[in-house]
């Protein structure tokens, strides 16, 4: 049996007096597609941000691809990771944000090629070739020379996905990638992600409020509430027969608001 690619071991995350994650543990297998759902403030974003090393953890351990994320071995002892170690670990992980966070002063193509050229020292010609493949995949090849300000939200998000893919991470994190989009634009982004899920064996963690999409996309759904995993299982089970009351209430509210599964 293969090793998990992510192993989260009783991590704690506090902001001042507020404990957001309280001893959370979970494992993700290579190639697995995971959907994280749950009410606002339950810690879904936080867990992705911790994996992306955008936050620090207050306690616990995280192992990614066989190595400690926030710690490193030094003289045989585990010590807090330094910037170099984090830099090395980040190669394995990519993230797409709710607000795209494209670089507004660079054209679409430069947005995609910048990181490979800088972090991997790939030559421009090669980086551009690969970038065009990715832009083609997300249906944005014809906009390679546009500036982000000229794109619609859905187009921006597709570029952001291509940009994250350009570094060929083993793990991709998606945080509500459609919730800042006009309803009509949602579909084009979800299509790209469906394609991606089908075509690659990348490990993916997805935070979403689109229950229908979570259902189609995920191998496994985790339901979060107040910094804990309250329930987890296959999408069929979670959405059709939630066991926990909190899951049931949450799903009822969301569905009443007009979303279908």
């Amino acid at each position, binding site marked *: 049996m293969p090793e998990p690619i992510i192993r989260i071991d009783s991590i704690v995350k506090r902001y001042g007096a507020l404990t957001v994650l309280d001893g959370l543990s979970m494992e993700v297998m290579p190639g697995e597609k995971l959907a994280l759902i749950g009410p606002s403030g339950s810690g879904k974003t936080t867990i992705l941000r911790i994996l992306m090393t955008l936050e620090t953890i207050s306690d616990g351990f995280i192992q990614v691809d066989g190595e400690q994320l926030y710690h490193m071995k030094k003289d045989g002892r585990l010590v807090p990771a330094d910037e170099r170690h984090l830099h090395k670990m980040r190669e394995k992980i990519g*993230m797409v*944000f709710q607000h795209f966070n494209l670089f507004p002063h660079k054209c679409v193509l430069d947005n995609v090629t910048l990181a490979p050229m*800088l*972090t991997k020292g790939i030559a421009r010609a090669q980086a551009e070739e690969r970038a065009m493949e990715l832009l083609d995949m997300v249906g944005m090849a014809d906009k390679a020379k546009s500036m982000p300000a*000229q794109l619609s939200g859905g187009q921006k998000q597709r570029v952001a996905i291509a940009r994250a893919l350009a570094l060929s991470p083993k793990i991709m994190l998606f945080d509500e990638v459609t919730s800042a989009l006009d309803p009509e634009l949602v579909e084009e982004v979800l299509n790209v992600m469906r394609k991606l899920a089908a075509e690659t064996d990348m490990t993916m963690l997805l935070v979403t409020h689109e229950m229908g999409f979570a259902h189609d996309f995920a191998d496994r759904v985790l339901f979060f509430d107040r910094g804990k995993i309250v329930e987890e299982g296959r999408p069929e089970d979670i959405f059709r027969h939630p066991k926990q009351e909190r899951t049931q209430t949450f799903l009822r509210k969301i569905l009443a608001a007009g979303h279908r599964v």
Partner: protein
Amino acid sequence: MIDWSGYIGLILEGALVTIQLTLMGSALAIVVAFAAGLGRLSRFTGVRALATTYIEFFRGTSIFVQLFWAYFVLPFAGITLTPLQAGVLALGLNVGAYGAEVVRGAVKAIGREQREACIALNLTRYQAMRHIILPQALPLMLPTFGNNAIELLKGTAVVSLISLTDMTFQAQVVRAQTGNTLIPFATILVLYFVMAWLISLGMRWLERRVSRGLDGVRA
């Protein structure tokens, strides 16, 4: 009869000194503004403390006091500067301290989201600053830099108090020699205004140049 063309010529010589002071002072101010502004955002406590001390000190004391120190007190420490050097030093360090806050503010204004995107793309701190943060922060700084440059221009009038023969000082000389107050002062008011206006024009031009692309038009 008073030889006005000659005396206006004297004032224009002073204007040259004023321009020199403004240009050299601005150059120094820009350098220290970036050094101290980025220093305040450094990871290292020592660097932060140093930058903060510099900024608070030079914003805290008056430009007059700084000028007098540069001119009259530094020599006792064995550093004798020409009046021009003392003027450039005091003005540059003074305006640089204000500029440092502008740099810091602009860099911080390029939000957390852009920084996070850099981390997610695994850029180093230096790469993020150089390729992502500063190119976006620069257009934000320029308008305030323009105002600072005008402040510096106006500050040069103060150096007349340490006998640097700038425009205001020459106006004083002309006034003493001719007994006329209105003409020399009116002349320099107009000259200062024209210079300030040129600075604004230049800054606006620069702003247009560096922010091209951000509004959707490709540079």
